[in-house]
């Protein structure tokens, strides 16, 4: 293993290709930390944005005008403003409004840290798109299928949970898939509020070691792999829940 790391030192000396995270244990630690932060942030946001999408689409079908309006307002706000600015907004503006708590060093610090805010703002951002995606899926479920559920005595929530949503899910999976891919890529924005994810640590490494191109290539490879994994898993899933006789 050590020899492996030393080889990259040699590579740098000989060719100028500087992959510090192989031979420098500090950079390696940062890089691994960044990698897992990205994964963790992605997973958290994938989960919550999907929940937001499902609940939002359900609320959008509500009979109460104001519920629908609030959901629409939410969607329009988050879709039409840059997520980077949203993140600032959550962290600096809302973060300031929350009560502070004493931390282990005896300082008053904000109740929610930057990771939490990044997760919240990215979930809301992707969630806004998810609501629309689920809505389109729900609209594609034939009225007659919903009626059949009603005729069997399902109430509104039951027919949504057991019939409409499972079908809508299959219809909108490709679109959802796409949005989730975007979400994973968008987690890079968390670097703006100092969440130590991949872009953030890469940025630190390239400012320390002047190896911007190498780090960019690294980022490219890592993200294409990560997203590729997600796409692959989603496709597997898509196939697994595919309904015979439907879709193309």
């Amino acid at each position, binding site marked *: 293993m050590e020899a492996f790391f030393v080889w990259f030192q040699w590579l740098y000396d000989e060719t100028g290709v500087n992959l510090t995270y192989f031979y420098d244990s500090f950079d390696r630690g940062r890089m691994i930390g960044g990698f897992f932060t990205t994964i963790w942030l992605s997973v958290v946001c994938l989960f919550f944005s999907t929940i937001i999408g499902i609940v939002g689409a359900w609320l959008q079908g509500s009979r109460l005008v104001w519920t629908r309006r609030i959901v629409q307002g939410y*969607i329009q706000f988050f879709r039409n403003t*840059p997520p980077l600015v949203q993140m600032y907004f959550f962290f*600096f503006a809302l973060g300031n409004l929350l009560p502070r708590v004493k931390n282990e060093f005896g300082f008053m610090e904000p109740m929610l840290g930057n990771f939490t805010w990044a997760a919240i703002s990215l979930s809301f951002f992707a969630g806004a798109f998810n609501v629309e995606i689920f809505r389109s899926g729900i609209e594609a479920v034939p009225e007659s299928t919903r009626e059949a559920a009603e005729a069997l005595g399902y109430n509104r929530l039951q027919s949504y949970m057991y019939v409409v949503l499972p079908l809508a899910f299959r219809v909108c999976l490709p*679109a959802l898939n796409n949005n989730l891919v975007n979400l994973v890529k968008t987690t890079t924005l968390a670097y703006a509020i100092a969440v130590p994810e991949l872009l953030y640590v890469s940025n630190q490494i390239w400012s320390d070691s002047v190896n911007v191109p190498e780090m960019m290539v690294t980022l490219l490879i890592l993200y294409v792999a990560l997203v590729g994994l997600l796409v692959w898993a989603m496709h597997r899933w898509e196939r697994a829940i595919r309904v015979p006789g439907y879709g193309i």
Partner: protein
Amino acid sequence: MSGTDLPVLLPAAQRLTERARREREVGGPIPRLQARHGVWLAVILIFSAGAAGAQAGAEQESVLSIMLKWTPLLLKGFVFNLAISFLAMVGGTIVGALLGIWQISLLPPVRAGSWLVTQFFRNAPWLVLLFFCMFLLPFQVEVFGLVIPLPDWIKATFGLALPVMANVSEIVRGAIQSIPSGQWESSESLAFNRRQTLWQIIMPQCIKRMLPPWMNLYAILTMATVLASVVGVSEVMTLTGQVLSAEGGRTDLLVPFYSYILLWFFIYCYPIARWTVHLERHFAVKT
């Protein structure tokens, strides 16, 4: 898969037409909600917050007047954002549409090649693509001794057009594949060739399905133009950072300034979103 849509549950087509008919009976589109009121409320809140901040530091210049002072500069930056988003969308859409059609080509190599290109550019982070454009494209090109400069914002346009292209490609492919196969068969049995079928039968039916994801993509792209700072474009976010720094890092400026920028984006993008809904409905009535 795609931004795009939907391997549609077959009966949906019928049902949607039903709704369109109902809308026609009512004598026009049944209006969806108006997010505007809520938003204006938010705007007023933001401004009052700014004003309050201004009163706190009495001897300092008021937040509002600082914002006004810098507005012309920031607007110049915002113009870059809009120009980049517009050009990248046009370029990306044209190339992406071709790529999407190639994805359903009957020739396996064409199909595989365009699939690969699409997947690669779709999965790579935008920032990294932008950086490579900055890095790989020269700052000027010489054609027959003529030096054509490639300013940063052109590079940024190029860098952003790549992911747009990949996304459009997926949108087009998804939409084409969501058209029931009966449409292909009946065109075939009427002796349409593949090109005629595609352009006269399939594509017109795809428009409605493609519009929402396409406009979503434009929204995402517009928001992503702020990344152009990486290639050195003085777009609005970069300038905002520089302005805040020029004001000496006053902590009461950060939120008002970013809210201000937020508002600009909203004012630009929201009407487009409304217009999409309108267009979608327009196409829905006809099908």
